[in-house]
């Protein structure tokens, strides 16, 4: 699988300065990429462009040579797992919101048992978390771990991780690496954490365009 950003320009509506200018990147299966750049340099924006939530002003994003629009985009969204910086699964208990993702037709066959899911929670240091706890009442770090567990169980070919270790201690980071690093995937991560970036096999620097 080859994922390519070619000469991407992008500015948010109403903003004169583009956040990305002439950005290119090619990622192959097995690549574990750390996107590096200052806050606001466009790391998260790249994920949003890739997932089709924003449209590049110029340039194309392709998967195996095919542009990610319409049907290609829908199929791609089904091949990704995205860990946002602040995961919001909505109202409801942890059990309701966690398993809701496995009610989707595309994910039904990946639904883990409660025991298996809890095993991974425990592995990630979530042993005191109860299934009936309201998702909203969990801390940022706990929500991040839940998101990582979701990425693990969804087991998609492309992983998009936005600051995956920002609220984790070193022991937990090691476990996240153990759980998610996979040679059969493309992993794109936006991270400020040197611990994480040094463990990726490619580093791509994003510099905000100079006006």
């Amino acid at each position: 699988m080859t994922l390519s950003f070619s000469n991407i320009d992008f500015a948010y509506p109403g903003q004169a300065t583009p956040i990305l200018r002439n950005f290119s990147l090619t990622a192959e299966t097995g690549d574990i990429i750390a996107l590096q750049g200052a806050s606001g340099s466009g790391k998260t924006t790249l994920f949003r462009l890739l997932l089709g939530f924003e449209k590049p002003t110029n340039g194309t994003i392709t998967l195996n040579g095919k542009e990610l629009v319409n049907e290609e985009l829908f199929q791609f969204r089904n091949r990704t797992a995205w860990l946002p910086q602040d995961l919001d699964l909505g109202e409801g208990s942890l059990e309701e919101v966690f398993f809701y993702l496995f009610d989707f037709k595309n994910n039904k066959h990946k639904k883990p048992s409660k025991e298996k899911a809890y095993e991974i929670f425990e592995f990630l240091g979530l042993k005191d978390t109860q299934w009936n706890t309201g998702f909203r009442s969990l801390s940022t770090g706990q929500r991040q771990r839940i998101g990582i567990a979701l990425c693990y169980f969804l087991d998609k070919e492309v992983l998009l991780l936005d600051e995956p270790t920002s609220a984790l201690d070193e022991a937990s980071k090691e476990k996240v690496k153990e759980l998610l690093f996979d040679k059969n995937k493309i992993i794109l991560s936006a991270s400020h954490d040197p611990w994480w970036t040094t463990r990726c096999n490619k580093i791509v620097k994003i510099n905000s365009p100079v006006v």
Partner: protein
Amino acid sequence: MNTIIDISWLQLALGLLILVIPIYILRRFKTKLIGSTVIAVVRMIVQLIFVGYYLEYLFKYDNPWVNLGWILIMVLVADFSTIDRSELKRDKGLLASIFVATFLGVFIIDLFFLQFVIQLPNIMEAQYLIPITGMILGNCLRGNVIGINDFYYNLDRHQERYRFFLASGASKKEGLFPFFRTALIKSINPTLAAMATIGLVSLPGMMTGQMLSGSSPLIAIKYQIMIMIAIFAGTLLSVYLGIKFSLKVGFDRQNNFRTAILKKEKE
């Protein structure tokens, strides 16, 4: 049962004298609401006089086409009110979606109750059609304002959650399901609460009106039960259809939410 005693216009004017009490209280507490009260009372009187004369005409001529025309006008007014009282812009597609949803919500329920339950020889009979439609429509309007507003407000506020679902392999329908559920619950809660307390806390207007017109309380409660069920079903149906139809306008081909349909478009 006795028939109702008509009130003369003079007697009605006499009835307005009681407004002295609320106006005194509002004035004493310097609420600055006296102007609004006078305007509201005058508007209510003018609007009801207009409706009274209009309905007299509708009932007298009882023409199915005129009756249908009146219902379409009521639905159209409800349609604009729903959009104007919500966070949504007056978009043609949205107006059309909510118009069709409200009309179907009212029409299906009317058809069911008037044709199958009351078994009217002519379901377009103004005496039944107009008041029952009006009761259902008023509640549909309230339900639509709450439900449709809640749906789009929450979607706008929690757009990242919807996007997360899409990015996790959800179809548009699956990604919107939690927002849809919350909107339906919120829109129907007032009707549920009203059903649960009816008769204990208040006597509904329709039932009171019927009894004042000489109906036996037992006939009045049967109509009231029917109308409560009709309101409940009609509200839920029109909110469901309103959201469902508006989805075609509110999303682009990539299933992204079009914030351009909101009054204050967020960039």
